[in-house]
């Protein structure tokens, strides 16, 4: 039992905006009152629900591939030493699994969504998530380039595709469905890409990216999954791609969707020399489409490594930068590409990217629909979130930062004109309440009675960046895991999984195809539920 007393509480889901009130915790949940137990005097602090990351890459074959590729990054990053409470490891752009848990919890974040999981290597992803302590985990399975599904769409068999998709979601022990560059990664298997939403995907006659998007969004909604289709649009990173993004919003009409890392999809111009921000057009369209949520995918200057299932884009990035290139095509399902990258202030393209991430956060009017992410590690490592919070809350600081950009860049962006400053209440929305709602986790992202007792307590100081980087206390599931800036108690997290209903006979359809196209026994394909740490299974019974 625990009582947090005297803190200023920001709990947007319950409309509590900086009220001084007690938070009581018993058996891992928020309760109305407790008698006895420990009391934390939180006078002079602010109290937030634990952070929720709606889009990050923290586990699995692709990230682990990246780890092997960048020993030079590990060497220059601060090591985390073994203590009596925690294991040693490496931080940097691709932290080791245990350190990932410590770093997230260490800044008050308690739930993460691993955004890209192939079914074929999902067992690996779950093993890594199991070794990621403290935080609760969800993950999204990659589907928009799954050839069994694409073949069904080509044949017009939408109903069967729905059952196959549901089977696959459960096979991967996933929580949501991810679509990356729909059709483009399948085309990449022949070294091609899918750039036009309404042009057939190479290798198909009828399947277009638009059809894949519409079909998957419909399937996700039809199955009643708690999180909408998690969509990485076509043409990521390309100048002029805002048109594709606007068209995608139209294709989605009527269905829910979460547009991942919107920053990478809001560029104008014709080429790298004329690239500019189109965040205003994207934000306007987004504001009008209430069926959508998004995350920023903001960029910060510095070294990182880019990891995405978008294979063709990574080949281009390798050709542009001449740096290392990792590529891993996953049979019949998806691919991934890895390129180390440095975002530089004086680089026009990078300056536009940096500005667009912030512009979208400032121009999208409903904080409940846009969430703080860097598409870790693509835009920057997740442990740099406090820097973005500082930029959002302080317009003067932002203007100061603009001075570092090349003067030419200022004509390509809107940021100098934006005066909006985020309030603490809004920060609590974009870092916790909003993403929890989008993920469909009713016990997360708030401090109402019955919520999971995931709480972050920060010293109330004017130095916002420091405040959000170093919480005073972090409580996960009712246990105090961090005190006085130090991890002192490492608890295990949970794995959230969905089990949508499907016709069991669909297995008879999948098995022969699997035996023909894959290279392992069908029995070894689905991940055993025992592989998950503390699985919480949602059977999607609220289906409408």
């Amino acid at each position: 039992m625990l009582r947090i007393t005297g803190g200023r509480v920001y709990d947007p889901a319950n409309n509590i905006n900086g009220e001084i009130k007690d938070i009581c915790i018993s058996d891992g949940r928020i309760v109305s009152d407790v008698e006895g137990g420990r009391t934390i005097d939180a006078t002079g602090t602010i109290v937030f629900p634990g952070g929720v990351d709606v889009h990050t890459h923290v586990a699995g074959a692709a990230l682990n591939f990246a780890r092997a590729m960048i020993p030079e990054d590990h060497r220059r990053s601060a090591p985390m030493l073994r203590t009596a409470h925690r294991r040693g490891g490496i931080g940097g752009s691709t932290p080791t699994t245990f350190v990932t848990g410590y770093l997230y919890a260490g800044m008050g974040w308690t739930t993460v969504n691993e955004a890209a999981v192939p079914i074929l290597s999902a067992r690996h992803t779950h093993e890594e998530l199991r070794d990621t302590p403290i935080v609760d985990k969800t993950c999204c399975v990659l589907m928009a380039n799954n050839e069994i599904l694409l073949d069904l769409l080509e044949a017009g068999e939408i109903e069967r595709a729905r059952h196959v998709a549901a089977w696959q979601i459960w096979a991967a022990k996933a929580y949501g469905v991810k679509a990356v560059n729909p059709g483009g990664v399948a085309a990449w298997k022949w070294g091609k890409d899918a750039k036009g939403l309404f042009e057939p995907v190479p290798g198909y006659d009828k399947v277009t990216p638009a059809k894949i998007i519409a079909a998957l969004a419909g399937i996700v909604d039809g199955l009643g999954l708690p999180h909408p289709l998690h969509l990485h649009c076509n043409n990521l990173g390309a100048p002029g791609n805002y048109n594709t993004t606007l068209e995608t919003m139209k294709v989605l009409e009527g269905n829910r969707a979460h547009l991942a890392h919107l920053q990478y999809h809001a560029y104008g111009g014709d080429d790298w020399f004329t690239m500019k921000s189109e965040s205003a057009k994207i934000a306007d369209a987004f504001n009008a489409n209430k069926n959508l949520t998004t995350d920023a995918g903001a960029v910060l200057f510095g070294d990182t490594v880019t990891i995405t299932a978008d294979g063709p884009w990574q080949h281009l990035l390798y050709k542009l930068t001449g740096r290392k290139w990792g590529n891993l095509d996953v049979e019949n399902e998806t691919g991934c590409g890895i390129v180390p990258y440095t975002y530089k202030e004086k680089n026009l393209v990078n300056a536009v990217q940096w500005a667009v991430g912030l512009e979208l956060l400032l121009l999208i009017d409903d904080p409940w629909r846009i969430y703080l992410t860097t598409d870790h590690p693509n835009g920057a490592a997740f442990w740099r979130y406090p820097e973005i919070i500082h930029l959002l809350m302080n317009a003067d600081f932002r203007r100061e930062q603009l001075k570092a950009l090349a003067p030419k860049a200022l004509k390509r962006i809107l940021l100098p004109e934006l005066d909006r400053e985020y309030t603490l209440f809004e920060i609590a929305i974009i870092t916790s309440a909003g993403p929890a709602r989008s993920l469909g986790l009713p016990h997360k992202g708030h401090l109402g009675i019955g919520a999971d007792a995931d709480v972050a307590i920060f010293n109330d100081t004017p130095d916002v960046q420091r405040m959000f980087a170093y919480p005073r206390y972090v409580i996960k599931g009712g246990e105090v895991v961090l005190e006085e800036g130090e991890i002192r108690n490492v608890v295990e997290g949970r794995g959230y999984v969905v089990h949508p209903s499907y016709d069991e006979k669909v297995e008879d359809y999948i098995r022969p195809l699997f035996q023909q196209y894959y290279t392992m026994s069908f029995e070894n394909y689905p991940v055993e539920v025992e592989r998950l740490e503390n699985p919480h299974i949602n059977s999607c019974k609220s289906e409408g």
Partner: protein
Amino acid sequence: MGGKVTCTLGEVKNRADLIIYWGGNPAECHPRHFTKYTLTQKGKFIPKGRKDRTMILVDIRETPSAKAADIFLQVRPNKDFEVLSALRALVKGQRIDAARAAETGLTVEQLQDFADRMKQARFGVLFFGMGLSMTRGKHMNSAALLSLAAELNAFTKFVAMPMRGHGNVTGGDVIMRWTTGYPFGVNLSRGYPRFNPGEFSTVDLLLRGDNDAALILGADPGATMPQPAIDHLARIPTITLDPKVTHTSRLSRVHITTAATGISAPGTVYRMDEIPLPLRPPLKSPYPTDEEVVRRIYKAVAKKPMWLPLLEPTAKG
């Protein structure tokens, strides 16, 4: 330069029309490779199986794998790097010197034909073995081959994959990466992982005599390592966990017999393309699994006072 352009084995089965093995002898060392993944299987886009594929073997001698190949290219020993460099030049349309090419054991015509075939393939794959990665040039040979594969993607689809073996070495590599950030050669003595192949790899530690104890799991260094390394293992307390008595067991202070993973113990094995496969043991064993033994050792060690590396240098410096 750097990185790796690769895929899972099913992509090779479904798409590869040009299969190159370099410095390896799969017919004898990976006997199921041809039939399960690469040559003889029919694939989604390779309807006629073997007839739709071309296989090239590059090696310093004619091994039994050459029988399976359409083209066998015999390279002079220690000239792999030169051949790869010549191919990288030809692929980009640059000229190469005929006399220098001849030193590799191949003619310019052979090299040009090889480069053309790679560029004209729809989906090509380069498998490379220890005949490339562990001979003169070592990691530079691997880097040259991986660069060739990456650069070919400017023309067509091309991937590369090392022919790994030795049980679950890939699994060890994968797990070391997620727990320490590095694949091998990791030193944890300072309380955090440090990586330096050549300094912290097992052979180097043993040759210098840096370690004062050894726990050997799923390996038989007593049979494969250089004699001075073996001598050091015999000098220090060495504990070996293995289902059978190995060369290493004989020089160990303690040998603990464990259940054989995959036969009488469950677990996970990572295929050479890093796809994890669950192991379902058909038999029961009277012996504990490796995991049980390690957990019990850890439990006993954990009773000792916590040792932490010094964060500050001592007064003595």
